[in-house]
């Protein structure tokens, strides 16, 4: 088990480093950071001065090592655009995104699991067909457009919730619904097929023969195994929501990490962009790692094998 954890952890770290180095090089080869800091129409001498002062004339690998060394000390560099440490920026914005990601995950679970389970219990019934057509249509709706539609409906026509911002819990209701809806098709389909698979297995037939019925059969016997893939997909979806927050936060004007990422891309603020990508990637690999470990804990076959 320890061996398994170490191997997976090492892999996760390697992935995070590769991706972050790739983004670092991309921006360093494609944009001129010295020019960005100096401003569009700064004189050439000033740009050269800055290039030397910040060390942009050194090889990319050296610069990356330098930055990464800082990261381990909790120093992500200084934003070129906002002129303050990236750590402060991230601390300011992280709360909104974490709250949004978690609440939208809750929305996903509350819609997708019941829908998927009831579809699997009665395959090819009207419930099943309703669930599948919901999934098909939800997949076709552009998420940002759904955001605008719920704003028009629930913030303007029926002014129940605020249009935009992130001040109170009321501000989170519509964004969570919209971001949560984006994961419903995937989670719902996986719940349905997973449970259908388990329900046709031998041990469930044995359980039925022994007299297990109804909710005890589903919840105590079947769901335990059907949960394995769902745990994985939920972890992945939670990671995706960090990326999805880019869109949702822009639509609802929330000051989270996603919107920060968009603005720093627009301002070619390299330190902020690369720090955010490193954080997003690390979160994603850690979440999938956690899901693997939970699965190993739930399922002895993975743990022992």
């Amino acid at each position, binding site marked *: 088990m320890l061996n398994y954890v170490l191997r*997976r952890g090492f*892999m996760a770290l*390697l*992935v*995070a480093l*590769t*991706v972050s180095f790739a*983004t670092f090089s*991309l*921006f360093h080869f*494609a*944009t001129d950071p010295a020019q960005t800091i100096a401003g569009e129409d700064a004189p050439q001498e000033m740009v050269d001065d800055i290039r030397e002062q910040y060390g942009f004339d050194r090889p990319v690998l050296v610069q990356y090592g330098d930055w990464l060394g800082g990261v381990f000390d909790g120093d992500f560099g200084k934003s070129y655009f906002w002129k303050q440490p990236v750590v402060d920026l991230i601390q300011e914005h992280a709360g909104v995104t974490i709250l949004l990601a978690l609440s939208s995950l809750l929305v996903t679970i509350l819609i997708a699991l019941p829908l998927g389970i009831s579809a699997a219990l009665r*395959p*090819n019934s009207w419930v099943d067909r309703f669930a599948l057509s919901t999934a*098909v*249509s939800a*997949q*076709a*709706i*552009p*998420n*940002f*457009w759904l955001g*605008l*539609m719920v*704003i*028009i409906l629930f913030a*303007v026509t029926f002014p129940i919730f605020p249009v935009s911002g992130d001040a109170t819990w009321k501000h989170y209701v519509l964004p969570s619904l919209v971001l949560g809806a984006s*994961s419903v098709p*995937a*989670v719902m*389909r*996986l719940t349905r*097929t997973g449970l*259908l*698979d388990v329900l046709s297995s031998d041990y469930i037939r044995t359980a039925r023969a022994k007299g297990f019925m109804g909710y005890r059969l589903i919840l105590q016997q079947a769901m335990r195994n059907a949960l394995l*893939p769902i745990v*994985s*997909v939920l972890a*992945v979806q939670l*990671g*995706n929501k960090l*990326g*999805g927050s*880019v*869109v949702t936060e822009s639509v609802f004007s929330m000051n989270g990490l996603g919107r920060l*990422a*968009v603005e720093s*891309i*627009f301002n*070619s603020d390299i330190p902020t962009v690369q720090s955010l*990508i490193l954080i*997003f*990637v690390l979160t*994603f*690999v850690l979440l*999938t790692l956690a*899901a*693997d470990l939970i*699965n190993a804990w739930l399922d002895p076959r993975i743990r022992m094998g």
Partner: protein
Amino acid sequence: MMTIRQTLGDVSIASVETPPEYEGGSLGLTPTKAALKRARKHHGLKIGFGILLVMAVFALFAPWLAPHDPYMQNLSLRMLPPVWNEGGSWEYLLGTDHLGRDYLSRLIHGARISMAIGLGAASIGAVIGVTLGLLAGYFGGWIDQAVNFLVTCQLAVPSLLLIMALVFVIGQSVTVVIFVIGVTHWVFYLVVTRSATLRLRELDFVAAANAMGCSKFQIAVSEVLPNLTNQIMVIFTLEVAVAILNEATLSFLGLGIPSPLPSWGLMIAEGKTAMFFQPWLVILPGIALFILVIAINLLGDGVRDVTVTNRRN
């Protein structure tokens, strides 16, 4: 270890790993004829295909079918409502935008952009993913491990953020958007091609080709690849839909198709400032996107149903 299929969170193509089994009643028909026979009975496929056909005709013949020039500004006719609203006119069926351009004409021309991007990006992704999948599945070993590492990296990055960064760095144009969406959406092709290749390379006809002295490259291209067409076609349609939604999102955020091109995502972004008073500016392009994407998905699901019949149900 977690499978990539779970990571992708979509099981709609799960069935491709098992070999197709043709239903009774289609005995004596070639697989293609049997598939076509099933296709004629598949409602979703027919509906999706029909809608797409109509939209494709509009996209292809947009300059002749659109009632007005989509770039023609007329500031005295700004923000006219659609014909069913008070103040609308038959001259401008779906009204006009903030610069007085005919909305219907812009929507029709927008179909061209969406379709070009969908087909272009999905093709680029297919070339990358299928090549890597054949390599990884057929050769295995360190090639397989390297490809697997590449997939893990690709999946770990929020793809929208990566696309935005790339577009920003390279510059905004239709070609760049197609290219960037293409090079970030190849994982599905790879996963399916790889697992199918793993299965196929154990079969007798590959051994026969090997015995006849075919090179590994020849076997991969002319023996294995033709057997993957069905699966690749299904993924291709689904990826077209994904690419179209990605382009719309990108254009909405201001890092996609540059103005004044009539991209549906961009039209929504332009209409957003006026959406509380002229909501149709935002609603109409969204509906167009929804219809196009759902038609493509229906077609994709239908093609899967009729070509790969062994579904778990």
